[in-house]
């Protein structure tokens, strides 16, 4: 995928929880780390996302907060 986002973390979908409009998709990116994405239900359907799929969490560098 050629896209300008600096952070592209591949992993396995471990949960897809649908709400009224938004779904929470949990992606296990290894090392015991899980990333949660809040995306629309439509997007979940478009991508046919389901548990066990390989998916990529894409995060623009300017959207990352840093804590210390």
């Amino acid at each position, binding site marked *: *995928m*050629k896209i*300008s986002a*600096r952070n592209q973390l591949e992993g396995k979908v471990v949960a897809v929880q649908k709400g009224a*409009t938004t779904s929470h998709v949990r992606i296990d990116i290894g090392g015991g780390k899980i990333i949660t994405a809040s995306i629309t239900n439509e997007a979940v359907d478009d*991508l046919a996302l389901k548990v066990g799929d390989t998916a990529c969490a*894409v995060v623009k*560098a*300017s959207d990352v907060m840093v804590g210390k």
Partner: protein
Amino acid sequence: MTEETLQPACPEAFLALRAAGQMPVGRERIAMLEAVAAHGSITSAARALGMSYKAVWDGLNAVNNLLPTPALEAHAGGRGGGGARLTESGRHLIAAFHRLEAKLAEITPLLAGEGGAPIDLLFWSVAMKTSARNALYGRVVSVAATEVAAEVTLSVAPGREIVAVITRRSAENLGLAAGREVVALIKASFVLIAREGEAAGLSVANRIPGTVAERRDDGVSCEIVLDIGAGKTLAATITHRSAEALALAPGLPVEALFDAAHVILAAG
């Protein structure tokens, strides 16, 4: 806090140059349009105004983005090369501005006599500017609301739609319904760039095709301005590394991607 303290002590005078379907445009940008009309190209207009080409090019793009139809048409030749001329919409805008200025000149002595604020101050408060690099005129196509959220679809140009997800309350406050004219504000840092067709499987609501019109680097960050058709432009700031990885250069067909939740809507 009581009801009374929420009311402003005295109503603010607010004057805006706007006809139906037009968002406020300030004096300096009118001067840019006039200079292009007089000199036939952005390069000569910038020279006449004593401004950089970049400042005038940016200012005119901003005007085109805020109008239903562009005020200016650029001829082939691109940056620095070809000429530019006003459209019917641009001529109307300038004429309206001068009518307003003439009326203001008539009432200036009256205001001064009453000890009011200088007229120029009034005039400069006309067009609110925001820091958002992208301010695009749009017409609401549809609003789909849930208990909490509202998904608003706008048409910003023929064949170019933007989806915004805002709260239901905001949608109600702005009186959003099909046909309503709004301005979509999108911070440049919220916009991602992908090579054409390379980001098909991405959960992003807005996917706007365009060609790279300009690239500016500072070694760390990179600003990309896309020509998205119909005289409209969209700016994105990405990292220099990404711009290099995608080999972004003027003329390259790409897609601008941004989340529906990253779009702010403003209505007059």
